[in-house]
């Protein structure tokens, strides 16, 4: 019993560190990717390839002057960024990072906790995340911040619906809401062809659902083309206009943690998580196989993070009415259509 606790705590610490580390290096990657897409080089002075840049940024943020506006609500002003960061980090608890490791007969589960409604848990935590933005924006006592907060909340509520509906079709197919179960189901053969082992990814069954999911993920993470809550041009930074120092850092950082987690969600829900095609043909030892699986999972995550950035530096921002129209008049009907199609497909193939 006790050794299980130690294992869990160890895993939590590792997942925590990986989430933060990935987020930290995502900030560097964002700058590098944006530079490369614009024929520039990007930061390269702090260490080779700018590898120390996140540390330099962190140190800079820590040493900047802490400003709380005179008419701000001090308690809520501090609560906002903290809440945003906490919720961003909490989501990673249910993501299965790999198959259980075999430690001499003891199975070491590479998932912090397997609750049977893992998908819903992620949704709940994400829906709480909007409070961080709303509280911070309101407490700043600034019209730009308030506008950003209001935009964020309405945007997140609207897109959460479509996201949930797109997931329902997937849950209908898998018959389970546990992420572990969903990922394990994707290890089979694609369309029953025995050659395509380990390729039974949901993307091949739910392309429309994935499309809706990824659009909603962009909106939930407040990333371009849906970064209206913080659009620099009209809202001067939006909900974090009044923030400085590490509290601003938390907001910016939590965005990258959110990106990491939603990439992990996309990889595990639609792209087979830790499953690698054709891996079983190599007849590797079990633990090596697990390790390769974890690596593959992270490769998928990194690809999606890159995709987030790629989109950001390609597509301009939506207008607010376009955003709402897309969410309510396009994505939700499409998601419902997807549910119907999935239902028909399940009946036909049964």
């Amino acid at each position: 019993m006790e050794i299980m606790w130690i294992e869990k705590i160890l895993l939590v610490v590792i997942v925590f560190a990986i989430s933060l580390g990935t987020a930290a290096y995502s900030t560097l990657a964002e700058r590098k990717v944006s530079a490369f897409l614009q024929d520039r080089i990007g930061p390269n002075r702090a260490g080779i390839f700018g590898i120390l840049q996140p540390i330099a940024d962190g140190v800079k943020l820590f040493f900047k002057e802490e400003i709380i506006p005179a008419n701000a609500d001090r308690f809520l002003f501090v609560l906002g960024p903290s809440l945003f960061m906490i919720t961003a980090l909490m989501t990673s608890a249910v993501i299965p990072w790999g198959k259980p490791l075999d430690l001499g007969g003891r199975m070491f589960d590479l998932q912090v906790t397997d609750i049977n409604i893992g998908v819903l848990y992620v949704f709940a935590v994400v829906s709480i995340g909007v409070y961080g933005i709303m509280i911070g924006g309101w407490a700043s006592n600034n019209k730009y911040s308030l506008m950003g907060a209001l935009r964020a909340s309405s945007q997140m509520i609207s897109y959460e619906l479509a996201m949930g509906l797109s997931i329902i079709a997937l849950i209908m197919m898998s018959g389970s809401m546990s992420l572990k179960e969903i990922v394990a189901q994707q290890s089979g053969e694609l369309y029953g062809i025995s050659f395509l082992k380990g390729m039974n990814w949901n993307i091949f069954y739910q392309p429309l659902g994935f499309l809706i999911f990824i659009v909603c993920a962009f909106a939930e993470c407040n990333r371009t083309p849906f970064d209206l809550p913080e659009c620099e041009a009209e809202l001067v930074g939006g909900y974090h206009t009044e923030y400085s120092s590490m509290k601003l850092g938390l907001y910016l950082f939590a965005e990258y943690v959110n990106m990491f987690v939603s990439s992990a969600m996309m990889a595990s829900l639609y792209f087979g998580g830790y499953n690698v095609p054709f891996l079983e043909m190599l007849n590797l030892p079990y633990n090596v196989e697990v390790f390769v699986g974890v690596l593959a999972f992270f490769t998928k995550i990194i690809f999606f993070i890159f995709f987030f950035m790629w989109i950001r530096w390609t597509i301009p921002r939506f207008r607010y009415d376009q955003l709402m129209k897309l969410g309510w008049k396009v994505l939700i009907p499409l998601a419902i259509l997807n549910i119907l199609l999935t239902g028909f497909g399940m009946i036909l193939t049964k």
Partner: protein
Amino acid sequence: MEQIIFIILSLAAIISALVVIFSNNPVYSVLSLVITFFSIAGHFVLLNAQFLAIVNVIVYAGAIMVLFLFVIMLLNLNKSSEPSAPLIMKVASSVAGGLLFITLLGALRQSEASAGLSGGNIGSVESLGRTLFTNFLFPFEVSSVLFLSAMIGAVMLGKKNLKDS
């Protein structure tokens, strides 16, 4: 262990519910109501009903309270702009609230834990879905019609110049 968690959650629920009523600032009221919902969700988890707990968080804390907060922020309700209700309103509302409380208390005293519900798995998705679509199919569908009518009503209210269109 469970006892301690139960006491902590109950205290949190009661205290934050009291803050909802007594706080002068509407934003604080909404936020403490969110905390209340969280402690209730915690109670659901203690009862092994994770699905209910999560749905409670998603629907109430994650969507409805966000809308509340949205409206309060948009209208910029402050202490000064809050109108004080006339005495008769205060009396009437406290009487109505007290009556509701008595009704709930009576209903609670009347009810007894049914054997089927006290099982260890009542809150799972499977058992909940089975119950909803067998024993309570009619109320479930009726409530969906209720939601539909509410949605239509909202659209009607939201449409400007209904006569012109």
